[in-house]
Each structure stands twice: as C-alpha cells, then as structure tokens.
C-alpha cells in the first residue's frame, strides 16, 4: 500500500505543479497588474502544495530523493496530472475556464482529503483547502463577469468552455489507484467529489449564461501518464536547466 500511496501523492503534486506552471507563464503578461498578481498568487499557492506533496512522497519513499527530483527528473510518462491542467493559455477566457473547472473539483476533493487516514496528507489538504477556497471564489467571479460582460467576453468564454469541456470528466474518472486508496481510507470518493463539483459548475454556467455541451464523454490518460501534445513542451521548458546542467543548484 505504501507504494500506491506514494504514487497517489505524487499525482496530486503533479496536478498542482502543472497548473501552477501554466499560470506562472502569465507572470508579467496578465491583462492588468491586479490580475497578473492574482494569477501569480494562485500559481504560488499551487507550487506550495506541490512541494508539500513531493516532500512527503520523498520521505515516504526513503530513497534519498528530494522534491526537486520529482519535479525535474521524471519523464513524461511518470507524470499523473489530469489533461486539463496542461491545456495552454490560449486567451484569458481559457485561463479562467480551466481554473474554474479545476477549482470546482479541487475544493470538494480537498475537503474530503482532510479526512484521510494518513495524517500528513490530511494536514496538507487542510492547508490547501483554505488557499483553494479563494481560488474557486476568484475563478467563479470571473466566470460570471466574462459570461455576463460584453458580447466578446461572452463569446470567448463560451468557446473556451466548449473546448475544455471534454477534459473536465477526467478529474473524477476513477482509476484503479483512486478506488484502491479510497477503499483503504486514504483518498476521497471521487463520485461524491463529482456530485458537488458538477452542481457548482452547473450553477455558475447558468448564472454566466454559458451553455454546457451535452456530451459527457471525456478524454482520459493523464492520470496514467498518457498526455496531450502540450505536456512535452511544458516539461522541456520546466526541466531544461536540470537536463542541461544536471544537479545544478541556484
């Protein structure tokens, strides 16, 4: 079970890290100073969570690896983040829609992870829960603002929601690892998480006057290390320094 728990914790770290990386790409490029800082703050929260997960995974593993080894020295197939988190910053509407979908899942997920049998994991969840409460508040407000804003903001948000829709379901698709750890009392029941997340998404889309596509089909694979074409580019940016100058330090 320890092996599976480590794998699971690293996967949680991967979600936070890859989404955090996507947001960090916007540092200095936000549409306004205030929004630039807001997105960077969220990115920093996510990287803080990543460090907590990776540090814990390294300790559990006990093979002398560090958080940096998990971030910089794994190859693409070893990353278990959901495909949604790696989707690009096509425009501000995509950034907000991606964030909103992820936050809608992330908050009820963490709320339940707080009850994990593993105390350390529960503590990480409790700390992250406060941060993500704000993330969801931020992205929800922006969904309403863009949806109810101008014709252009509405149509851009509608496009982003339609395009990203097929990546949403993966977040609550249960893999064997999810089921196993849930049954053992370590991980949340994704069916419950999905129920709460879907209800919130539905409410906000209605308020933002955005049509959700009918489809319930979803891409999958991210959790098992099979990624979209964007992931390789992310890792080549992200890991370039360590790959070029192995073991370099700041």
């Amino acid at each position: 079970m320890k092996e599976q728990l480590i794998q699971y914790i690293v996967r949680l770290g991967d979600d936070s890290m890859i989404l955090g990386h996507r947001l960090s790409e916007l540092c200095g490029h936000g549409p306004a100073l205030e929004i630039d800082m807001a997105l960077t703050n969220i990115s920093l929260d996510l990287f803080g969570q990543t460090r907590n997960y990776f540090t814990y995974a390294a300790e559990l593993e006990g093979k002398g690896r560090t958080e940096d080894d998990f971030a910089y020295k794994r190859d693409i197939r070893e990353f278990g983040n959901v495909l949604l988190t790696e989707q690009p910053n096509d425009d501000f509407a995509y950034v907000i829609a991606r964030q909103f979908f992820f936050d809608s899942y992330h908050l009820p997920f963490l709320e339940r992870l707080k009850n994990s049998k593993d105390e350390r994991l529960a503590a990480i969840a409790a700390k992250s829960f406060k941060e993500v409460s704000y993330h969801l508040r931020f992205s929800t407000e922006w969904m309403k603002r863009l949806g109810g804003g101008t014709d252009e903001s509405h149509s851009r948000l509608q496009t982003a929601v339609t395009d990203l829709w097929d990546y949403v379901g993966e977040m609550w698709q249960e893999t064997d690892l999810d089921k196993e750890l849930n049954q053992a009392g370590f991980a949340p029941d994704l069916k419950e998480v999905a129920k709460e997340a879907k209800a919130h998404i539905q409410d906000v889309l209605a308020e933002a006057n955005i049509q959700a596509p009918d489809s319930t089909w979803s891409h999958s694979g991210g959790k098992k290390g099979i990624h979209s074409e964007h992931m390789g580019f992310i890792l080549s940016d992200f890991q370039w320094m360590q790959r070029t100058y192995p073991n370099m330090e700041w």
Partner: protein
Amino acid sequence: MKNWPLWEVFIRSKNGLSHKHVGSLHATDEVMAMENARDVYTRRMEGVSIWVVKSEYITASNPEEAGELFEPAQDKVYRHPTFYDLPDELKHI
C-alpha cells in the same frame, strides 16, 4: 481596462488598530476591488481586514488651502495633553 474605476484600499494590520490607507487599484466593481486588494496588498501578511472605497467618493482637502486649514494649529501646543504630571502608578498612558 483603462476605463476601470479607481479604488482606494485601506488595510487594518491587526485587530485593535485602525485601517490605514495603503494605495489604490483598478476594478470594475466592489467584488473585484476586494479580490484585487487582497491579491495586490496582502501578499505578505499585511492585514486582517480590508476596506475598499471608490476614489470618487473621497473628498480631499485642497493643498492650496493648507495655510488656513492647518497652520492655525501650529502655535497651540496646549492642545497636547503633555502638561500634566502623571502619578507613577499609572501605566500604559
């Protein structure tokens, strides 16, 4: 974005103290102003409470009137409560 109204931000650094002006920002409405204030001005644990006020609702004194407004107070030191001998037993005053 240039059309977004300007807001003034006031932060209370801890309970018991009063809110203090820390700067301004742009936002379309009060919800966004509050979020922006949180994101721009409280990143380093600066506060426990935020007020945001639309700048247009602030009436400011005219610098040109500084003479008549503030100078008359300059020679009235007796308004400071510094002319009393306090007993040593009194603390925290």
